[in-house]
């Protein structure tokens, strides 16, 4: 049994704005073990990033606040430790790779310094040593001429190289948990694959637990051990990656999978979008946030949040449709007619 790194229970993060309370994350729970990768998937505004930022305690307060839940890093409660302790956790125990490498690096500071800074802070190394380690890290994430590159500024790096530099920065202190927030979204498709490889290699090397936030199910399929599907700040389905792809139970998960282009589609056909608009997080219904867009909604869906229903090994879903009916509906959907194996 691998070491349990993270235990998140009932996490709710809200933003208190003039327009009203934005309920960005509502009662999200998950765990992460050493060497494991959990994919958090959902559309923009589903609460993926806010959930991760809550773990780092980087939610701007005000207006944001973690209003409920427990966040345990091994046996440490991330909600109650002091700011100084939290700073020690950031970068050292939990590190983060951000979405846009073009803006996530300080434009007027040398790349080497931006990496060395974290090393000097957390590992009690001198400047020269930290600088050398920064160069080594750049080489390790696949940047050629690392000794020269370490002395350059971000604008001298391409997008893919900047993301590699971000990864170097994130792994510089050998963190237990690595949060990758849409690490490939801003990059070219060819570069995306390389970056995923780098993240995977680094995970293997350091045996970190990885939280992968993305709306790209392809990336999820390639990297994750388990998947959490989020919608409107709630976890609607949760399970091992194969279960989510081959035995999905929530109508939103069906929609996500059906919206993927398929290579085995012979005739010209349009992609299948999920009809309707993403929910307004201020006026969320007390029940299932997907209700307005769900073609199979019931009377109680809007008002009562369904309890977790276990439908497979470590596979849970929150949905009011009875399980038998669900399987029958799914079998009738074009995307799921033949198992996509």
């Amino acid at each position, binding site marked *: 049994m691998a070491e349990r790194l993270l235990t998140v229970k009932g996490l709710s993060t809200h933003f208190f704005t003039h327009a009203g309370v934005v309920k960005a994350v509502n009662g999200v729970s998950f765990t992460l073990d050493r060497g494991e990768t959990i994919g958090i998937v959902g559309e923009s505004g589903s609460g993926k990033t806010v959930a991760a930022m809550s773990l*780092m305690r*980087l939610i701007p307060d005000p207006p944001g606040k973690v209003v409920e839940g427990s966040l345990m890093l091994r046996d440490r409660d991330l909600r109650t430790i002091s700011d100084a302790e939290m*700073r*020690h*956790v*950031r*970068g*050292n125990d939990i*590190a*983060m790779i*951000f979405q*846009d490498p073009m*803006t*996530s*690096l*300080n*434009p*007027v*500071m040398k790349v080497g310094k*931006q990496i060395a*800074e*974290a090393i000097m*802070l*957390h590992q009690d190394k001198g400047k020269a040593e930290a600088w050398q380690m920064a160069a080594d890290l750049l080489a390790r994430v696949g940047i050629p001429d690392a000794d020269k590159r370490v002395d350059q*500024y971000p*604008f001298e790096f391409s997008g893919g190289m900047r993301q590699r530099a*971000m990864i170097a*920065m994130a792994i510089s202190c050998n963190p237990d948990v690595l949060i990758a927030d849409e690490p490939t979204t801003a990059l070219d498709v060819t570069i995306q694959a390389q970056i995923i490889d780098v993240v995977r290699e680094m995970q293997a090397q350091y045996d970190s637990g990885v939280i992968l936030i993305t709306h790209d199910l392809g990336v999820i399929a390639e990297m994750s051990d388990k998947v959490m599907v989020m919608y409107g700040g709630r976890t609607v389905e949760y399970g091992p990656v194969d279960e989510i792809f081959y035995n999905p139970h929530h109508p939103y998960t069906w929609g996500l999978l059906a919206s993927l282009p398929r290579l085995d589609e012979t005739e010209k056909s349009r992609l299948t979008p999920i009809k309707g608009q993403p929910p307004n997080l201020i006026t969320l219904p007390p029940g299932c946030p997907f209700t307005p867009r769900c073609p199979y909604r019931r009377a109680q869906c809007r008002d009562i949040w369904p309890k977790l229903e276990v439908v497979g090994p470590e596979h849970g879903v929150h949905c009011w449709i009875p399980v038998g009916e669900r399987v029958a509906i799914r079998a009738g959907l074009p995307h799921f007619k033949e198992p996509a194996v």
Partner: protein
Amino acid sequence: MIAYIIRRLLQLVIVLFGVTLITFGMLKLVPGDPAVALAGKGASPEKIASVRHERGLDRPFYVQYYKYVERLLHGDLGESLYSSRPVGEMIREAAPVTIQLAVAAVLIELLGIPLGVYSALRQYTFWDTALTTGALILWGIPVFVLGYFAMYIFGLKLDWLPIGGVGPTVLGIIPSTPASWSTLVLPALTLGLIEVAYISYMQRASMLEVSRSDFIRTARAKGLTERKVVWGHGFKNAVIPVMTIAGIDLGVLIGGAIITETVFNRPGIGLMIYQAINSRDTAVIAGGVLFATFFFVFANLLVDLGYAWVDPRVRLED
């Protein structure tokens, strides 16, 4: 880099010629005849005509301009129509007075930088609102209103400070006696405080914008202390645009704080130009404006070079 500087200096020469042409043209367009002013009150038409001929004022515009530029190329800015003194000498005398005030005012306005940062870090608190409101009010006061007000309070009512004039200096611009320092206080504060308001306002906006950027989040995610995030990552990015403003201000102020120098009766470039305009002293106005333009363009060049120095992304194209 060298090529860039040379090119910019050549551009400066072109700008200066343009400025002389425009100044000359404008002085010909405005009503009033310098010959009448020169000949003195109640002079006979013959006297006026002879003065006009003597000074070459009866020649066509382009001839007058050509003569002026020709002399200019020999380093001769001409003579004052009024006092017959060489304009070059007048500028040499007036410039240190103006530079002293400009440097002092810019040094004071730099106080706006910490104030702006302070405001930004405490956005929407009492002190932020107080500073921002105060800055806006101060910024809205015309310099002559603030100047006369300060003179009235600190000069006349309280009698703490002299209301005008200048004192002895070392190295041309540094006041050498307490009395000399005291003459600088009111004009420098008047000019400086208004700019402090502007600078702090800009610094606040710039700091707030930077603090929302992604790389600040990255810096926090590394576990850096708030102080390092703010000063190590935020400040350098936020101060660049503000330094530009301060640099250009220095150029503008050296060009002559006409109003301030007039209010405080400081014999600098501004007062010189003001008096020359009143007496239609063409050569002095042209010389003064030339001097002002030179420093304005030169300060811009220095700002651009400074930019390249603090911001690695800026590479000056050769």
